[in-house]
């Protein structure tokens, strides 16, 4: 069960890293390009540590590369939020903020995990994420409180993404077991702190927190939106075409 939980933890940063990597050389400015790449590489580092650990736990000889490149989309356990398309810059930054605001609470709590490896990964990730959330929150405020056009785009992004935030806090038998063993916090317990941060940033960004519509769910169980398949096809094509290829 720990194997499955660690996969869930590792797949979200992996998918988000791949999304941001797709923006390299396409960001609006050179400075932003470098910044997005930095965030992407932080997330990739988190994913690598977690997937390597998952491979050890599974004990069937799969390493981080096997898990990243040779699983089908239904075997991915990432949150639906992170597989939503980059869209425009407003959607990219809002998706990042909604995830970062969740991740900062998660890593903070996981530092106290009864599992030493997870606690160590969390200790590194919490510093990286503290910077990510500062940046993405800053952009959300700038776009929301910026020009008519930037606000319009941010509102559109919120309409696209909000339905995927409910899944962040849904729990099932795996989460319950991890909480009982002191391995991980119960995701539902992270919601109040997440909501406080989101509301505070949204106030500055002149955004209203939408009514909670029926939340989309399923990512953690391997049921994904159509976007993940396309993303994986691009991410996995090289190792699948040339297995064992090296630089």
């Amino acid at each position, binding site marked *: 069960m720990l194997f499955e939980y660690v996969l869930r933890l590792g797949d979200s940063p992996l998918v988000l890293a791949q999304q941001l990597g797709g923006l390299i050389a396409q960001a609006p*400015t050179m400075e932003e390009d470098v910044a997005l790449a930095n965030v992407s590489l932080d997330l990739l580092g988190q994913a690598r540590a977690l997937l390597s650990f998952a491979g050890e736990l599974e004990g069937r000889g799969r390493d981080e590369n096997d898990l990243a490149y040779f699983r089908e989309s239904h075997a991915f356990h990432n949150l639906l939020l992170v597989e939503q398309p980059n869209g425009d810059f407003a959607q990219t930054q809002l998706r990042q903020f909604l995830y970062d605001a969740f991740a900062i609470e998660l890593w903070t709590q996981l530092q106290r995990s009864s599992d030493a490896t997870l606690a160590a990964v969390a200790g590194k990730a919490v510093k990286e994420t503290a910077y990510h959330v500062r940046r993405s929150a800053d952009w959300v405020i700038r776009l929301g409180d910026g020009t008519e056009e930037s606000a319009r785009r941010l509102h559109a992004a919120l309409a696209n993404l909000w339905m995927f935030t409910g899944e962040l806090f849904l729990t099932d038998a795996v989460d319950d077991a991890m909480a009982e063993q002191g391995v991980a916090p119960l995701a539902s317990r992270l919601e109040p702190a997440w909501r406080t941060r989101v509301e505070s940033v949204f106030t500055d960004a002149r955004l209203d927190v939408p009514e909670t519509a029926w939340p989309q769910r399923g990512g953690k169980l391997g049921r994904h939106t159509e976007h993940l398949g396309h993303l994986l096809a691009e991410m996995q094509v090289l190792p699948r075409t040339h297995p064992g290829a090296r630089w």
Partner: protein
Amino acid sequence: MNGSPLWEVFVRSRNGLAHSHVGSLHAPDATMALHNARDVYTRRGEGTSIWVVRSSDIHASNPDEKDALFEPALDKAFRQATYFELPDEVKNL
């Protein structure tokens, strides 16, 4: 951000005492200039502190006055520590 102002970036390195100029970048305000400076200029663990200054706030000496400003110092070798012979008795200076 192409229309946004230019900022000069100064980074204090791990062991350095003073902030040194490392380059410049564009940003609409100081907060974002600091964010961008962190991402562009400290990616390899270069720094422990960052300053950003609007380029337009820097007043520079005129290159045409280079001779008048700096040449008089060149023939005053006694202003260099190496000009003085160190007595043998002095171990550390």
